[in-house]
């Protein structure tokens, strides 16, 4: 096609990438499916599609925002925890990790969370992450530093609880 975008084709081509990232960020497949829906709804109402060759980066951005919106919703966090409680009322170490990451991401600024996701989930360089967020490479360093401080505070608090 010279112009025009077929939504079904777009979905088939890009949904694996969106689903994979949403699952990695959220740590929950059911929620990732919801994000997949959110993302393609947004794609559909966007003013225009991203220029050729930049669609993946554009979907990365929309997926990140959509995941962070869910993470900030504390009701969802509680529901997730309850869903993963087993009979002994404890969650698996993997779910502990997911809940902890989500806790930290929900407590920091949006751009700090974005920087952490691009660098630590997607393995981007600071330069790439800077391009994704639209800030300087140096700013990424600062955003990550703030993320680390928040993570330290949260990990410290967790240790205190564990060790009484």
């Amino acid at each position, binding site marked *: *096609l*010279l*112009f*025009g*975008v*077929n*939504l*079904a084709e777009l*979905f*088939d*081509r*890009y*949904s*694996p*990438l969106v*689903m*994979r*990232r949403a699952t*990695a960020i959220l740590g929950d497949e059911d929620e990732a*499916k919801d994000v*997949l*829906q959110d993302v*393609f*709804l947004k794609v*559909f*109402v*966007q*003013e*225009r*599609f991203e220029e*050729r*060759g*930049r*669609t*993946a*980066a554009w979907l*990365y951005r929309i997926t990140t925002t959509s995941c962070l919106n869910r993470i900030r919703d504390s009701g969802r966090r509680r529901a997730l925890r309850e869903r993963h409680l087993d009979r002994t009322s404890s969650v698996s170490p993997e779910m502990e*990790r997911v809940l*902890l*990451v989500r806790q*930290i991401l929900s407590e920091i600024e949006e751009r700090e969370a974005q920087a*952490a*996701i691009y*660098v*630590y*989930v*997607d*393995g*981007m*360089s600071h330069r*790439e992450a800077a391009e*994704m967020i639209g800030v300087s490479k140096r700013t990424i360093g600062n955003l*990550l530093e703030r*993320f*680390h401080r928040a*993570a330290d505070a949260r990990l410290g608090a967790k240790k205190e609880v564990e060790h009484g």
Partner: protein
Amino acid sequence: MDERARELFGGAPAPIAESCVSDLTLDRRVLGELESEEASSVEAHLESCTRCRARAAALSVHPALDPAVRRIVLGRRTRWLRIGAPLALAASLAIAFLIPGSDTRRKGGLSLTVYRERHGEVVRSGSGEIFHPGDRLRFEVDAPRGYLLIMGIDAGGERYACVPLDGRARPVQDDLKKVLLPDAVKLDESLGRERLVLVHCPAPFALGALDVRDHRVITPPDCDTSELVFEKTR
């Protein structure tokens, strides 16, 4: 510090060289989005880097998506339709006297569907519906190969180019089947009955080649039209 954060996220492994690539680059590689120069430097890197080769292999395996999810996602359009249903019903009552016998949809394999967004909600809209200033429209078309233009005709009979905005019909090299055009237009403040006419011609043409006489759209020979009428109110 970084290592602990990577562990916390359970994401991509740490780069082992300056030239190591991100998941985004690996995704773009598979999707054919990389420019040739970048593509060859990525390939060269993959030849020599076990970390990135392993990551590329890991990303290429994705669990099959439940077909039900695909149906649900693409079916969102059906759900939007349902949201719009009361409006559509009201409009279908109006349509009878709004456009007596002028519905040319589906003529010559040509069809025009409008998706209207208002306050974040998307509704598939047909002829006779009530639109509002500020609504954003997108178009889905069926059309054979050739040249396409969507012309608007406002309540005062003024013609304007809707898609493309420069008024020159856009070439289409393949048959379009339910293809969503990349363009979006926002409705202005003027009120009253407006028409949107999708014009398809086998040869290049521009807005100036079209005319409206007694509400009939006059086109160059061998062209087809598909039309949609709506009322714009506050």
